[in-house]
């Protein structure tokens, strides 16, 4: 009798697995397209590669979205907006980063305005390689994200919550102040 009854932890695991099934079959994207890799997304979304057959689609606001796409290099001025956007998304949330610029700064690594390593500031689940990545790599990156969700290894959002002080300290070092009350002035 005792070993038939599931414990609370086992029940939670079952619910998480059920939720993960839906979450990997239906991924809504928020496109933060400030970099040049964004030009590869239209091919992946429209008739040629048809992202919708995997259940993916674009969404209008961060609240509705599941995955944040960061396409290419990230300047100091956009980091603050990116942090705002990421923190508005509802959990579980994932981040997909495009190109080498998010890893080491890419061809803009020596600019004073460009951040070199994005994963110091936000947790990244999937990197897509190529400058720019072709649509096949983009689609491959999204199927990788689905596999990560299936294997319960897409845990960037948990890391962000657990190591929040570390991320906030890095953001503060880069920006001086993360949250400004008047959004029209830096």
């Amino acid at each position, binding site marked *: 009798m005792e070993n038939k009854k599931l414990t609370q932890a086992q029940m939670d695991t079952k619910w998480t697995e*059920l*939720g993960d099934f839906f*979450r990997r079959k*239906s991924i809504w994207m928020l496109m933060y397209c400030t970099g040049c890799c964004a030009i590869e997304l239209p091919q992946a979304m429209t008739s040629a590669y048809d992202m919708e*057959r995997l259940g993916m689609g674009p969404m209008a*606001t961060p*609240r509705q979205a599941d995955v944040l796409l960061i396409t290419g290099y990230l300047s100091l001025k956009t980091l603050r907006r990116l942090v705002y956007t990421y923190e508005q998304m509802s959990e*579980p949330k994932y981040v997909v980063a495009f190109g080498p610029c998010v890893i080491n700064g890419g061809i803009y690594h020596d600019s004073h305005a460009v951040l070199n390593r994005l994963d110091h500031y936000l947790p990244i689940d999937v990197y897509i390689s190529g400058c720019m990545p072709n649509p096949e790599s983009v689609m491959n990156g999204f199927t990788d994200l689905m596999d990560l969700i299936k294997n319960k290894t897409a845990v960037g959002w948990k890391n962000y919550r657990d190591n929040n002080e570390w991320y906030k300290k890095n953001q503060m070092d880069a920006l001086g102040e993360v949250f400004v009350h008047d959004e029209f002035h830096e």
Partner: protein
Amino acid sequence: MSVILMSMLIGLGVALFGFTLQTTIGGINRKVVGRMQKRYGPKWYQEFLDIFKALSKRAISHGWIYDFGVIMAVGGITATAMFMPITDSLVAFAGYDNFFIFVYLLAVGMLGMAMSASGSGNPLASIGVMRALTQMLAYEVPFMVVVITIIKVSGTSSLTGIMEFQQANGWFALSLPIGFGVAFLSLLGMLGKKPFETYIAPSEIASGPMVEYGGKQLGLLFVMHEIATFIEVSLFVHLFLGGASNIIEFLAKYFIVYTVANLISNLNGRFKIDQVVVFFYKWPLALAVLQAIWVLWR
């Protein structure tokens, strides 16, 4: 007592049926549109996956008005759907399927959503709600003129009565062709399909009333939207296409009406809100009034 309980159970069954039907047909229509654009398209049950995914996410709250409004919207729409006849014999509350019940009860759900969206405090949500109410004011006037003509002709405002009148005397789609066209334009406005998609406008006001919704509240709003679409399309089927005498007939008519509306939607751009109001108050209203006069004095 047991009769009322039975009616309520049947009514809840109708609401659940409407949700399942519209979610399935919405998914099939996404595939139809995909094929139209030479894409493979999503799975036919993609809409179910989307809704359950949204319900499985964690949600934040913007205050109790925001949460309460969502529940009021789902409850109001479910209560409206409970009165909807599926065929001329399958109706949960026989004798209470008056057309005006739907007009009044549908407003409860819509106002719940408007209240909730305004409670989120986002200015884009307020703009979206304002546009939705303005658009409602625009399409309701010609639609009401047409429906009042129908009520005058058939002598009853009960949906089952109108259905039986049409099965005896021919469809209103054929005997009132102008009103049929006007009501189809109004249906596009009701469903928020493309020429009249003004209050959603994802690229302009970031999906309007839905701008602050995420997670569970968004899932509940999707459920509400599917049931509302079921009510509006079923109303159109019952008023103009002679209702249905069996469930297969209903499914076929429903599928055709929704698919045609969706195909028209995918061929059009989006009006501005002032263009929507001027459009509905110009030709559809004039034609509806002209037909009403012709029907009354012929």
